[in-house]
């Protein structure tokens, strides 16, 4: 009997039979912690294991991305706790300069197709975008993984999602995933892996795949994969990781728990209204809603292509007076590309506020917070009540955020 992608990857990392529903011990290729969760990992580790070396320091990393550089004394202390542990143990740190851990792991060639990676980031399943089984976990799991290199895991069943139709401007991969969220909600993919098929996803480059796979978490799913690749993606990955990129495909006789066909003909820009990422509307149903601020960045829309898309709207225009547009590249590498391609200058000229790379827009600790009564439109992935502050957050594509910042209210990019 054939295997799905998630069954195949787990099978190659366990001695036990990996079938949907079975609980197996999985060998981990990479174990990481960041500045949220990381200090707890260190404290747990010292309490449980003392000075015993980690299982494999070459496979263990810290990635600081949340409060970077530390903006409070508590985080300065917490990051230093991790640094001192890392120095003692010989563990490599991608420090406060480097950017969002999940993206850094892709850029560093540490998250490769068919590998298993864990860390204290609930969006680490973004690594499904490159065929890697990434999972976010709490500090108990990560402490255990640092010491043993293993985790227990219930092999998830897989949902097959067939996308019928094309994504064309002004719609983007973000609009595709918001629309999928609208259809599947938080129940259909709950606790499942998802395999996406169809030309609209097969043709996506890395940035679009990251956007698509980043919001599986918001569907309560385990991970998403896009098995089919394309020559552009393979070349992009080869340049990035210096290795040939080969995707992991499911067996033809793999068993799926269900199959869903989603028709996206005529897909328009989509916006998730407060306070749930599945509370999705076509942008035209919300146009005119006044905004105070915009945010472009996050692990969902923080690649160079995302900022380039925003610049196409912003170039030669100005962010409306009284509106704050905050821009946060996902990584230092993206930051450099923005510099080299002149995009930072275009963003600056439009009136955007540009910060160093990190997890802005999501958690308290970096920019992108809202005050009571504030209305923000963001390219992030979560708009739960109170998450970014007492204001209300709408989720949309970089193009929609840019257009909205120009007009001062939620806007369709084609109306700018």
């Amino acid at each position, binding site marked *: 009997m054939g295997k799905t992608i998630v069954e195949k990857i787990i099978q190659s990392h366990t001695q036990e039979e990996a079938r949907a529903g079975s*609980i197996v*011990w999985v060998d981990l290729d990479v174990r990481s912690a960041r500045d*949220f*969760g990381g*200090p*707890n990992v260190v*404290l*747990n580790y010292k309490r*449980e294991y003392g000075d015993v070396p980690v299982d494999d320091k070459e496979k263990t990393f810290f990635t600081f991305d949340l409060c970077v550089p530390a903006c*409070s004394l*508590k*985080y300065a202390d*917490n990051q230093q706790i991790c640094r001192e542990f890392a120095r003692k143990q010989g563990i490599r740190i991608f420090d406060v300069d480097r950017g969002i851990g999940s993206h850094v792991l892709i850029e560093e060639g540490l998250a490769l197709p068919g590998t298993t990676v864990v860390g*204290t*980031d*609930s969006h*680490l399943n973004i690594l499904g975008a490159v065929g890697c089984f990434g*999972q*976010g*976990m*709490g*500090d*108990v*799991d990560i*402490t*255990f993984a640092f*010491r*043993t290199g*293993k985790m*227990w895991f*219930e092999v998830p069943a897989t949902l097959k999602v067939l996308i019928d139709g094309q994504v064309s401007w002004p719609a983007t991969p973000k609009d595709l995933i918001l629309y999928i969220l609208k259809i599947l909600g*938080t*129940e259909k993919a*709950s*606790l499942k892996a998802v395999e996406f098929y169809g030309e609209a996803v097969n043709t996506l480059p890395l940035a679009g795949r990251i956007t698509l796979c980043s919001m599986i*978490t*918001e569907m*309560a799913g*385990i991970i998403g994969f896009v098995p089919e690749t394309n020559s552009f993606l393979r070349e992009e990955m080869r340049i990035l990781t210096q290795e040939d990129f080969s995707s992991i495909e499911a067996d033809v006789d793999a068993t799926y728990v269900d199959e869903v066909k989603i028709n996206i003909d005529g897909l328009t820009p989509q916006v998730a209204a407060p306070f*749930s990422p599945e509370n999705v509307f076509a942008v035209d149903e919300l146009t005119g809603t006044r905004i105070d601020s915009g945010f472009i960045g996050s692990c969902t829309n923080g690649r160079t292509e995302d900022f380039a898309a925003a610049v196409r709207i912003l170039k030669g225009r100005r962010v409306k007076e009284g509106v704050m547009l905050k821009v946060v590249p996902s990584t230092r590498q993206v930051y450099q590309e923005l510099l080299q391609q002149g995009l930072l200058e275009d963003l600056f000229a439009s009136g955007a506020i540009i910060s160093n790379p990190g997890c802005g827009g999501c*958690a*308290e*600790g970096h920019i992108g917070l809202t005050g009571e009564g504030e209305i923000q439109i963001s390219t992030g992935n*979560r708009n*739960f*009540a*109170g*998450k970014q502050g007492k204001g209300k957050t709408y989720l949309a594509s970089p193009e929609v955020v840019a257009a909205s910042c120009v007009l001062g209210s939620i806007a369709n990019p084609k109306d700018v």
Partner: protein
Amino acid sequence: MAESTLSGRVWILLDRVGSLIEDIDTDQIYHNAHLHITDTAKMGEYALGNLEGWEDFPQKARPGDVLVAGRNFGAGSSRQQAVDCFLSLGIVAILSPSFGAIYFRNAVNSGFPVLRCPEIKPLVESGLLATGDEVRVHFQSGDAQIINKNVTFHIFPMSEVHYDIFSAGSLYNYGKARIQE
């Protein structure tokens, strides 16, 4: 070997209009503003601090209480604190039709019973199960009762791995016996 039953007074997480709250995310359970705290004992006072109508839960809860929530409890982030804050208050179990995947394993790893119960919604909507009731659940058989009303219901029994980790007290203890031998 740990006990395989527990009982306690229940708190049902209802919204203002009396409906069971679904999709409660980890920022509502334990807001990211308090993630710098690393001492479990200090986490209890922030439990449900960002869930509308439940901000005073830490003052109302007593050790030994059981929490009942709508489906997909613990959606969102990977923070262990969203489990630890309940351990800190002495909450003994959470019953929900389903849990966020990461939340579920974080709780299992801490030896905290998160019990899946498909009957929660009908029990609450029919008024059979209400805040203040005493429930008793058996992890392995799945048998459950509302003691003061003599009503029986069912939960999904704990899987073997979950029960073994629960019995060992934590993933660390379980792992020391199983993995590192």
